């Protein structure tokens, strides 16, 4: 499937702002599966998205969680906990 990846704040500084990404999931195409796959793509991804780090995910601009399913054409954003206001 083709995804639009976005990174913000400290993740953007580590990984760039994102872009189009072809992804062929091994199993269920969830947000957690994508994160795990991204961790295997480079040392920078492995550090920034490491399990246990506080990373939030949004799918199609709505807050999501590990189990949220992804679809072809989805916009998937990874970012640290938010600190607005």
């Amino acid at each position, binding site marked *: 499937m083709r995804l639009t990846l976005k990174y*913000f704040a400290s993740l953007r500084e580590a990984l760039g702002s994102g872009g189009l990404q072809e992804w062929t999931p091994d199993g269920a195409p969830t947000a957690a599966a994508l994160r795990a796959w991204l961790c295997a793509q480079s040392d920078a991804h492995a550090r920034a998205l490491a399990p246990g780090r506080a990373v939030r995910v949004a799918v199609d601009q709505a807050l999501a969680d590990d189990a949220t399913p992804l679809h072809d054409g989805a916009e998937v954003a990874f970012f640290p906990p938010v600190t607005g206001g």
Partner: protein
Amino acid sequence: MSRVRIQEADFDVGAELAALQDDRTDVGAVASFVGCVRGHTREDDVSALTLEHYPGMTERAIEAMIAEANSRFGVLDARVVHRVGRLMPGERIVLVAVAASHRRDAFQACEFLMDYLKTQAPFWKKETTPQGERWVDARTADDVALARWGVASGNAGATTPWPGAIAHTDAAADAP
């Protein structure tokens, strides 16, 4: 004028509050909150604060919060203006203003919106200090504040995602 705006420019608090009340006679109360940049944290002097956001999602998330506030309280109208970019100590960051028939609804909706915004809207702050730049850490106290309204938030937690995230309503999806 849109009720949710993300902008670099400052805002005129008086004009925003007046706009909530203009041409209507059902408003009995307008409550507002203005957040400002502090020049100090517990540890350091802060010479600037740089705010980043997720364009599109931010507006949708805040519209969804306003819809939730409308369903809980008797909100007649609301404004949320949040600045992004580089801000100096003393500058305004955010305005939340609510118009209602009665003060209790206005006060409560204003605080509810602010608690929601702190943990559910995609903004990030970076401080410039004598030690360099650093991203501000999320505070668990802000999740606790939202929990008072019966909404769970794991924003500041290590791994837990947002169990309390509210679904986007149709109204939010249609927002500009």
